[in-house]
């Protein structure tokens, strides 16, 4: 009972925030609504006892990805009028996507009504059940090759992103820290013995 109340409360906030993302006039507010969305979906995951995924969602998306997103949006000088111009043009496409999503959701509910258990049991797990250990076990045994493959793809993406944006410019002054640290006194300072001038 309590779980249902919590679910509907957080789901309502999630939907409200999702509407906020597309409805708010200020892009920074939109990004913040998106953060709220992620946070609420994490709570929904907590409710189905997927603690590890929930916390990782907050850690990765809210803690890192959205920070950079916010960073970029704050610095951009976005012309909101221009963004709104295309609304009627893209409205049919948006409506089509919405219809597809509704049909898919209806299909899932319909299959469930037939009495087929597609999502697996949702019986409460024992208190000492560790989500993290379970995921780790599956990830590094059954799915070790897909997992490694995904890691390599990500690595390639990182390398590509750096290769695309990094260029060497001529005449750039940079510091070489190891050379700075390696400097000895003799390289920089010369001790000169000057005979004192004695006034005659």
């Amino acid at each position, binding site marked *: 009972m309590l779980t249902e109340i919590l679910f509907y409360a957080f789901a309502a906030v999630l939907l409200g925030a999702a509407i906020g993302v597309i409805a708010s006039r*200020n892009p*920074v*507010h939109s990004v*913040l609504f998106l*953060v709220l969305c992620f946070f609420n979906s994490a709570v929904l995951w907590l409710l189905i006892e997927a*603690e*590890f995924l929930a*916390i*990782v969602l*907050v*850690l990765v998306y*809210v*803690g*890192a990805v959205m*920070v*950079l997103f*916010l*960073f970029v949006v*704050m*610095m951009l000088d976005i012309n909101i009028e221009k963004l709104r111009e295309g609304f009627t043009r893209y409205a049919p496409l948006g409506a089509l996507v919405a219809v597809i999503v509704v049909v898919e959701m209806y299909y899932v509910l319909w299959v469930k009504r037939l009495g087929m258990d597609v999502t697996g049991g949702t019986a409460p797990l024992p208190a000492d059940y*560790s*989500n*993290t250990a379970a995921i780790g076990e599956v990830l590094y045994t059954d799915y070790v090759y897909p997992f490694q493959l995904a890691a390599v793809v990500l690595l390639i993406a990182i390398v590509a992103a750096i290769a695309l944006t990094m260029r060497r410019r001529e005449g750039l002054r940079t510091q070489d*820290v190891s050379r700075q640290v390696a400097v000895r006194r003799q390289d920089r300072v010369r001790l000169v013995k000057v005979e004192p001038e004695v006034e005659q």
Partner: protein
Amino acid sequence: MDSLVAIWSGLPTDARSLILTTLAVVGVMLGVVMAVAFTTLAERKVIGYMQLRLGPNRISLFGLPILRGLAQPFADVIKLLFKEVLVPANADRKLFLLAPLIVLVPALAAWAVIPFSPEFVLADINAGLLFILALTSLGVYGVILAGWAANSKYAFLGAMRSAAQMVAYELAMGFAIVGVLMAAGSLNLGEIVRSQQGGALAWHWFWLFPLFVVYFISGVAETNRAPFDVAEGESEIVAGFHVEYSGAAFATLFALPEYANMILISALAAVMFLGGWLSPFEGYLPDAWFITQPSFFWLFLKIGGFIFIYLWIRATFPRYRYDQIMRLGWKVLIPVTLAWLAVEGVMVWFKVGPWAA
């Protein structure tokens, strides 16, 4: 008294556990807030003595001459609370007032999973360390929003610096924590403490020394403390992200979370690397003595030590330049942690040290 006991035992079990949990939460929060208050005093006193000054020495408790200076934090709080909260004319009013809360809430909520003693922890959850990492990564939103919503260039510059810095050092911190996970075999903070039983040399700092150092340095950087406090940088950007704040908003945005986070990082360093509530003399001295028993006393002592190091660093080192901070984070600390994780993997494989069993 008897009637109170009767009322208590008459309550349903749920209500009783609710009341007890609420009391425990309030107790921990009060403890953290008081610790914050006296850390501000300790900071001024310690740095004062290091610079051959006396520090605050006027406001005494109950008029006792010997307690002079001890009531300074209360005087500061009262002063800050009675000051006017100014909102700049072109600020985004809602976000400007929301930002302090976004910094404050994660700083306090993270305390839920810290094990204070063998018996007492508010929420003994399996993924405790991940929970803390997730919560501490939220604090950066408050800082960015504070800087952006104020609609001031100085504040915005401070916010940008702080955001980039916190994202950079979170990685080094995360890798250091991965090393602890490998050693302890658990994400639960209580389990991590229990895996270090057996005196000071069995604690993780010994085998994970590079990670310990990296963790504390990135902890200092995460909390935007000197020498990494370019987010404030009063000599170039006045006071950074909180330049437009005043009164209670300033206190909740800047003072409380910053010190609460300092104490949190200290507590985590103590729990992960210095055996939390375990005694350093365990196994070296007779078991029956108080000083070999695990208790909150040891955790308190270790946290105090780390806080002192924080203040000592602040009194000693000049501020880093921004590009040097970035270089240290990305090019020094992260490679060090990666290298040590590889070394640790080899140690686990050959069952060296704590992995001998």
